[in-house]
């Protein structure tokens, strides 16, 4: 299908010419498979499998037939409760070919959390790995999922399946929904960020061009695929150039970081700051000579960690800024490394404009701090089903991030503060309200407040303050979280204010709003 440039221009919203060449992500993959059939597309060391572009394209077509047998078609949504695996990527591209939306779901979430996402996105089918079958049995019992089909990917027998109707693939437009990625929400429930094919194509192309990726570029995908960063920076960006990706499971691979880089001659990877801190603290030894750079974002990178990492391993780190709502990165530091401006999150990618708005909502002059806002091809379509939040966040032609910073005279962005009190633990976003909601369900808890506290390895960790109405141990409170929230959202420490000598109550303002800043100050000064 010819690229609809009029449709693109309508959604461009930026003054410069930055055009994507494809209507949808499957078209990009298919074009590269035709151009580089024998080149390696993806390597999965855990599965001992290497796929050429051609091999993988054939398997995607097989999965497409399977989706048709399951009556998954254009406009339907498919949930993927899969770790990093060939099945994830095969179903990802197969769904795109059919015009279906992919809803990647973190397999570490608890059954009620998975059920919430599946119901909210109204997924037609959930594909899962047999490792998670026990969890999925619980999910299936949830209300609102009566019509959802749950499919264990090990049961998919594409070779012996009867040939499905092999009708032509539907037209999938650049503005069609591609993925819905769930992020933590202020009300405690996660919000579904709807990203179009144009969003994925534009952001990945911009990143690929920014770092001068070529068909020889090989990336290491060590971030989970249910995040935008793993999908866009280490899978789709090299795909744009005809490069290849080594895909490894995050939990088991971190200790092997430099071994993997050497074994597979990796050039680039993308990480959260906490990963750099862990590699440093684990005293891993660099063994390669291939690594060109590491892209880093998702939370503030501590200057000390950055300097120590670069001095130890002699690999430049390219910091950037972005949110799920901007597909992945909206800004990045300049490549090559001597063009970086340290202490900044770089400049706006060509796929979007970044502006700072002052308190009056006017564009601020260079050097003046205000809210970071963006417009462009990588800005999400909407938050799924949240019209009030959409009205607030997508005002005028801008996405209002709620984050604060400024832009200097050279166009470099200085990030200042994260919005609200969102906790960013090892790159995972946790809203205090999610944790508080569980604590409030405990019969002995009268009041509680949850804050993010500085943590050397994870950037931030979770601490809860509770006021009890009857006797209860901290261990009992900690146990109360099991099965209700994913483990990474459990508080590291719980303080019972009744037992603290100099804090008799949870501090509150005149309107009885909890003063989270006061609690953080108290924690830093006293605990």
């Amino acid at each position, binding site marked *: 299908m010819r690229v609809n440039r009029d449709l693109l221009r309508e959604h461009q919203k930026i003054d410069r010419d930055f055009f994507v060449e494809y209507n949808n992500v499957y078209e990009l993959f298919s074009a590269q498979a035709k151009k580089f059939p024998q080149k390696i597309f993806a390597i999965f*060391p*855990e599965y*001992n499998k290497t796929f050429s572009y051609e091999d993988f394209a054939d398997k995607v077509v097989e999965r497409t037939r399977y989706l048709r047998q399951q009556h998954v078609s254009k406009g339907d949504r498919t949930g993927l409760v899969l770790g990093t695996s060939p099945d994830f990527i095969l179903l990802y591209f197969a769904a795109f070919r059919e015009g279906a939306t992919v809803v990647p779901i973190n*397999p570490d979430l608890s059954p009620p959390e998975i059920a919430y996402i599946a119901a909210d996105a109204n997924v037609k089918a959930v594909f899962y790995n047999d*490792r*998670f079958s026990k*969890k999925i049995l619980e999910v299936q019992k949830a209300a609102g999922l009566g019509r959802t089909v749950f499919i264990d990917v090990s049961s998919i027998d594409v070779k012996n399946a009867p040939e499905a109707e092999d009708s032509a693939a539907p037209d999938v437009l650049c503005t069609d929904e591609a993925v819905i990625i769930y992020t933590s929400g202020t009300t405690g429930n996660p919000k579904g960020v709807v990203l179009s094919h144009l969003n994925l194509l534009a952001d990945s192309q911009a990143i690929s061009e920014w770092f001068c990726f070529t068909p020889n570029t090989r990336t290491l995908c060590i971030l989970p695929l249910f995040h935008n960063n793993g999908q866009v920076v280490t899978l789709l960006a090299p795909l744009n150039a005809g490069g290849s990706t080594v895909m*490894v*499971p*995050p*939990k*088991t*691979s*971190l*200790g*092997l970081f430099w*071994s*993997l880089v050497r*074994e597979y001659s990796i050039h680039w990877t993308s990480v959260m700051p906490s990963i750099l801190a*862990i590699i440093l603290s*684990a005293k891993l030894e660099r063994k390669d000579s291939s690594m060109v750079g590491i892209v880093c974002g998702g939370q503030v990178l501590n200057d000390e960690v950055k300097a120590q990492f670069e001095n130890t391993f002699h690999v430049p780190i390219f910091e950037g800024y972005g949110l799920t709502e901007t597909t992945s990165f909206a800004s990045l530091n300049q490549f090559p490394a001597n063009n970086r401006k340290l202490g900044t999150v770089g400049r706006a990618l060509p796929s979007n404009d970044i502006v700072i708005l002052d308190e009056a909502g006017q564009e601020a002059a260079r050097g003046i701090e205000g809210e970071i806002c963006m417009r462009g091809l990588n800005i999400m379509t909407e938050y799924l089903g949240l019209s009030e939040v959409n009205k607030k966040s997508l005002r005028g032609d801008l996405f209002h991030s709620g984050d604060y910073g400024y832009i200097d005279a050279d166009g470099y962005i200085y990030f200042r503060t994260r919005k609200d009190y969102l906790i960013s633990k090892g790159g995972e976003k946790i809203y205090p309200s999610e944790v508080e909601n569980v604590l409030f369900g405990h019969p002995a808890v009268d009041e509680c407040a949850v804050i993010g506290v500085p943590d050397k*390895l994870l950037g931030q960790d979770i601490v809860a303050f509770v006021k009890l109405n009857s006797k209860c141990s901290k261990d009992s409170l900690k146990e109360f979280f*099991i099965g209700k929230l994913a*483990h*990474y959202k*459990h508080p590291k420490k719980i303080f019972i204010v009744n037992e603290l000598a100099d804090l008799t109550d949870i501090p509150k303002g005149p309107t009885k709003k909890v003063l989270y800043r006061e609690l953080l100050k108290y924690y830093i000064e006293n605990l």
Partner: protein
Amino acid sequence: MNKKIEEKLAKIIKEIFGVKITDSLSMDSVEGWDSLRHIQLMAKIEKEFDIEIDFQDTLAMTNIKSIKEIIEKYTDKK
């Protein structure tokens, strides 16, 4: 698996994850078995059993069954 190795592994699992070893334990069922703990687990296993596990095997060590099999493979070689 010989009793001495089994006991040593049980001690490591208890120390790192705070749970009693059973064959059904896996990365997906043990709370807190994250990337950092996995690094600690691998380092401890290599130190205690005086072995060096290659990356392919490290990726496969996602549950107690596979961990036991892989430790046996390396200790048998010695």
